[in-house]
């Protein structure tokens, strides 16, 4: 009776999947594996003789500056996870578990921080929360004291947790949405309710998602370069690596040693996430289940929820508000609000930064396309073919997560400086295309996750039906699988696109001329000077609006696809 009894024929005859897998392996080998291995190799190499040595690591740990940087990086990352959790938890819970007018808008707004480079937010946050920022000026007037939100490491933690909390929100929301209604109802039936029910049933079931999100935040903060750089906090690992390479040169071993440590920590955090999730596939929507439990709020509960939500949104959107004020403000210094308002920054931004905008659209767009093509190919090979070693393809792609942007940048500089482009004889490391590739490799894990999730929702029997009716493998993928995956692919593209558009860590290393620079780099340049801040902020506002719109639209598409699917299930299932 079971179809598993009939062994699926092994399709060794078809070489197609192997060719696809081969192309993916070549790409990832050249642009991920080789550069990273090169970085590790150099870290263990004596700079003069080229022989194996541990002396570089000894030098690193003998330096109090590096030890301090190491400690600071760990501390900042840990605290950022704590604060990011405090922001994400209420938002995820309220919007997934209650019937809430405006849930979609709240979820979309909560994604907004992701679409702005954290270092731009940092500038705005200085103006709002810095020692002479709006909030502290007011507090000094009213209460006679101020809070050092932005002092040293505090500032990095504050900016980072606001920027990266959506990672926890996304994963936690997804986990919460996978908890079948009957799981909670069984708890209620046995006498549990309210916060106890949440603590004993809901949160443990959502734990895998939370851990996935939290470890991602840890890694991202640990690896981030732009924010500490802009806040002038240089005693952290990533800024140290950048400063060594940019000021001393690509032969200085310290940059490579730091890169190794960044990799080790990233791998460690991912391992923790893996341990936390092992054997815990708690997705509990199942046959006979009742779907998601959402309940109506009583009016006083609703008011309380809105207060909490708007407080959090107020904080996490503060950088955007600050940016908006900055973009319209003529002079803003030592005052609660700008002295007067103007629109001239937008004009300046358009005329002087058009190249940056154009480059960003091209780079991030290309990277997004590369990612969903690679993502679909990998997901398909892993889940639907018998290619030997297909699991490793998945591991290889996902391992990009453990490679900090700084490391990839350093690796590309080291490896591709010696490779010349055909026709132009320009070093490959200075070609604009290398930026696209770096972005694509770095964002591939996210796109792959979307593609895998989308493919999981396409039942193999739908493909078999197509093949049964005479469509070839390739045509089946094109006519059945990809259309059914469409909403997931769009989500993957938007994630890749919007995060690539604001990435700085790798690009700051790879941009060779201002003409090739993307928006993030341009913004970074603008933000360096006081005069550039207005136009820089105007640019930032435009970026936020464009990417925000794209995110909202993809949300709507994914939502609509989900509704279609659930109405289809309802039509075929028992609705009594």
């Amino acid at each position, binding site marked *: 009776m079971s179809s598993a009894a009939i062994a699926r024929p092994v399709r060794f005859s078809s070489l197609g999947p192997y060719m696809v897998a081969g192309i993916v392996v070549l790409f990832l080998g050249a642009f991920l594996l080789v550069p990273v291995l090169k970085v590790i190799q150099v870290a263990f190499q004596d700079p003069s003789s080229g022989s194996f040595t541990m002396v570089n690591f000894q030098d690193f740990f003998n330096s109090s500056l590096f030890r301090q940087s190491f400690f600071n990086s760990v501390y900042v990352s840990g605290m950022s996870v704590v604060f990011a959790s405090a922001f994400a938890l209420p938002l995820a819970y309220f919007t997934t578990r209650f019937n809430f007018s405006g849930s979609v808008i709240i979820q979309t707004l909560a994604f907004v921080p992701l679409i702005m480079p954290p270092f731009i937010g940092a500038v705005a946050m200085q103006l709002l929360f810095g020692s002479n920022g709006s909030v502290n000026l007011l507090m000094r007037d009213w209460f006679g004291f101020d809070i050092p939100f932005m002092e040293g490491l505090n500032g990095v933690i504050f900016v980072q947790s606001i920027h990266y909390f959506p990672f926890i929100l996304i994963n936690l929301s997804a986990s919460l949405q996978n908890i079948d209604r009957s799981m909670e109802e069984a708890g209620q039936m046995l006498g549990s309710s309210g916060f106890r029910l949440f603590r004993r049933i809901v949160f443990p079931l959502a734990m895998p998602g939370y851990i996935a999100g939290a470890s991602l935040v840890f890694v991202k903060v640990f690896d981030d370069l732009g924010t500490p750089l802009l806040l002038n906090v240089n005693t952290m690992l990533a800024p140290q690596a950048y400063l060594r390479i940019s000021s001393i040169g690509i032969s200085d071993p310290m940059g490579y040693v730091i890169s190794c440590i960044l990799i080790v920590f990233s791998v460690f955090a991912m391992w923790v996430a893996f341990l936390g999730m092992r054997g815990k596939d708690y997705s509990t929507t199942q046959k006979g*289940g009742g779907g998601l439990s959402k309940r109506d709020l009583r009016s006083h509960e609703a008011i309380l929820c809105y207060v909490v939500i708007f407080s959090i949104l107020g904080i996490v959107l503060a950088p955007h508000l600050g940016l908006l004020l900055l973009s319209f403000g003529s002079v803003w210094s030592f005052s609660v609000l700008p002295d007067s308002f103007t629109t001239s920054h937008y004009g300046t931004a358009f005329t002087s930064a058009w190249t940056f905008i154009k480059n960003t659209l091209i780079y991030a767009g290309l990277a997004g396309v590369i990612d969903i093509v690679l993502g679909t190919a990998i997901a398909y090979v892993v889940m639907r073919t018998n290619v030997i070693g297909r699991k490793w393809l998945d591991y290889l792609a996902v391992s990009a997560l453990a490679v900090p942007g700084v490391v990839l940048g350093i690796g590309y500089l080291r490896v591709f400086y010696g490779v010349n482009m055909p026709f132009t004889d320009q070093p490959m490391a200075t070609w604009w295309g290398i930026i696209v590739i770096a972005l694509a490799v770095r964002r591939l894990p996210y796109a792959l996750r979307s593609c895998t999730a989308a493919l999981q929702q396409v039942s193999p029997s739908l493909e078999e039906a197509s093949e049964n009716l005479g469509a070839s493998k390739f045509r089946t993928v094109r006519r059945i699988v990809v259309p059914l995956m469409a909403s997931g692919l769009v989500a993957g593209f938007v994630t890749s696109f919007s995060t690539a558009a604001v990435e700085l860590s790798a690009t700051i290393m790879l941009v060779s001329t201002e003409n090739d620079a993307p928006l993030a780099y341009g913004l970074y340049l603008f933000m360096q000077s006081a005069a550039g801040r207005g136009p820089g902020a105007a640019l930032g506002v435009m970026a936020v609006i464009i990417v925000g719109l794209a995110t909202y639209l993809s949300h709507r598409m994914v939502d609509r696809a989900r509704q279609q699917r659930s109405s289809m299930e309802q039509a075929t299932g*028992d609705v009594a």
Partner: protein
Amino acid sequence: MTTMQTSPVQIDIENLSLSFGNTEVLKGVNLAIRPGEFFAFLGPSGSGKSTLLRAIAGFGPTPKGQIKLDGQDIVGSVPWQRNVGMVFQSYALWPHMTVAKNVAFGLEERKVPASEIGPKVRAALELVGMGDYAERFPSQLSGGQQQRVALARTIVVEPRVLLLDEPLSNLDANLRVQMRQDLLKLQRRLGITTIFVTHDQEEANTICDRIAVMADGVVQQIGRPDEVYDNPANSFVAKFLGTANILQGVVAQADGGMHFECGDSLRIPVAADEKPGKAQLVVRPESIELEAAATSGGLAGKVDSAEFLGGMVRYAVDVSGQQLLVDERHTRGKKRMDKGEIVSLKLDPEQAVLIRD
């Protein structure tokens, strides 16, 4: 296991209506379930049976009307204060807790002293035959085992009533037969008023004291399974329970008595107090006798098809344009009638039920 014995509760459902948005799912349900009864809600998909069960447990929109447990109305009270036990169709075992933890949950929520929880959990697991699995996780159990744990988790808190939502639908056929007997034994032992939701008439018929047949959010008929089968209240019930021939015709005065007439050849005497007018006659296939044409005297018909069902053969017989299903007991070597063969049908008036929809 006397500790789990509770004094059984009477359930009265009065004029209960419930809507999802603009869709009316329950339309004025009235039911009285006796203390200690094993009661079934039987009906097709969309009949409202699960919605009614969930309303008793306190899930879903708040209904209009009353649900009384021993005379006390529980509509509007929150699920966690009702002490109504429910076994979910999906079992809803929490994957992050062991079997023992799952079962202990309700006791912990009730602040039962820790020293009593262990023995109670063990006793409940023993009762469902899962004593050896306390430290397993739900994912390490088969469907049938999960079902038993779900039962143990529900009964350990000694709920006032036990609600079973399609409890057997996720089990394979053999296990289903075994499990329904186990359920019945357990219910008798605990003496707890139990409601069983199913779309499978065999399940309801075999283990339930009484059934309520539901369709379109309305209770169509209540009674013992055999009573309902023998005396269906309307054509829906007649067709939903077993197989039925439903003949369209009229009741009319003839030959000095009331008769049901259908076509030219069919005339069956009915009770003298039946009113004249349109009516339907329900005749079960097994209550029609079929003979070769030679032994005349009955209704003449022609065999359209024959299906061999093992213990019997089901014939479709054309009687002047109407098709009647007739079941004939099959014994070893008995000859089967062929398609086109002329036969004679005998219909005992005692076996026919007159209904008017």
